[in-house]
């Protein structure tokens, strides 16, 4: 679906996107994802969909080491397994009730996921993690523009949202986040205004 390559790690968030008690929401290659942190600091990336009634997990809430769905308050633990169903408090929850869990790796201040990714995420040089900029163009177009006109001092990676949009993330080697932001917003204007 929409150009996601199996075996590849994609950056889907920055670590600073995931404070305590927050459910982060994004998309990767047409797959809606939710990410959250348990109390041990570990990051969990799940399909953004409660297996009960399909409501987005990212509308829900982190409760300690569990994610609670907004709709019927079903709770899911770190492994993705459902732990508690309030409407049936005495029920031992069947193991088959499970969030769809995605692989996750933390590296270079970014959170990485993908479809059966292999090895380690790409190495990035040291520097400050940028604010992610969405661009309403396919990843291939953004990649092409960056090859043609590289942005100096930035190590960038692309997160394909779907076939029409891409998030640009990365590192400012000189820690100058303001300059980096101007450069990325200019890139966005250039690409989105081009026919």
């Amino acid at each position, binding site marked *: 679906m929409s150009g996601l390559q199996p075996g590849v790690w994609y950056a889907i*968030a920055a670590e*600073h*996107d995931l*404070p305590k*008690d*927050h459910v*982060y*929401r*994004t*998309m990767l290659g047409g797959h809606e994802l939710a990410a959250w942190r348990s109390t041990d600091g570990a990051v969990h990336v799940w399909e953004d969909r409660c297996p009960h009634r399909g409501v987005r997990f990212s*509308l829900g*809430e*982190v*409760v300690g080491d569990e994610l*609670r769905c*907004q709709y019927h*308050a079903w709770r899911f633990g770190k492994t993705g397994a459902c732990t508690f169903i309030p409407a049936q408090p005495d029920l031992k929850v069947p193991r088959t009730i499970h969030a769809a869990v995605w692989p996750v790796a933390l590296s270079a201040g970014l959170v990485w996921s993908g479809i059966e990714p292999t090895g380690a995420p790409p190495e990035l040089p040291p520097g400050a993690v940028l*604010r*992610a900029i*969405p661009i309403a163009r396919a990843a291939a177009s953004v990649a092409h523009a960056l090859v043609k006109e590289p942005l100096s001092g930035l190590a960038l990676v692309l997160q394909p*949202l779907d076939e029409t*949009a891409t*998030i640009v993330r990365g590192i400012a080697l000189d820690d100058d*986040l*303001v300059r980096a*932001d101007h450069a990325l917003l200019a890139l966005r204007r250039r690409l989105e205004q081009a026919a």
Partner: protein
Amino acid sequence: MILYDAHHLAPCYAVRLLAGCLGVTLELEPLDVYPGHANQTEAFLALNPLGTLPVLVDGPCIITDWLEALAHLALTHDRAWFPAEHAALIGWLGMARDLGASAGAARLIDTFGAPGDAAAARAQANALLDEVERRLWFSERGFGERIGQDWLIEGPHPSIADLACFVFIAPCEDGGLSLRDRPALRRWCDRVRFLPGFVSMSGVFPPMANTGR
């Protein structure tokens, strides 16, 4: 204090939300604006010739502008919500009104059949939402959230500007907009939702677990 109110209108919600945060009890006077047009009756027009909601009545004082109502509540109950020493307060209240005319209008067009150009409203709203997202990152003194700057106006306390913008931003997906690629806005919405005294409205989810921390 009496609030002439319509549950689904964001400017009315802003006044109820601030009252909740201040712990002020309002006497609500609900009006059937949609579909009843109760804001166009002679009785209501005598109170507010513009026919707009909300109207806040505090003794002899009749306030027909929602931002003025927020200012009035803050100034009479807790001035921490009205940081008058910051020029940015004026800018952010203007931003809130612009969000109302764009994101707010798109929501009313899509969900209540209000007249207007939804596509134009969304285009304007997208530009404003991008700018609020950017400012949450780059506050004037550095990097917003990452230096502990949680609110739109510098300082440790939320202001009426946060609530005035929140009431259009939090339910913006009802107007065909999206917060998905605006992570700083989503975190800021969480911070507002977790404020003590927070109240919700249709399309704005109340916090469940993390209240009272």
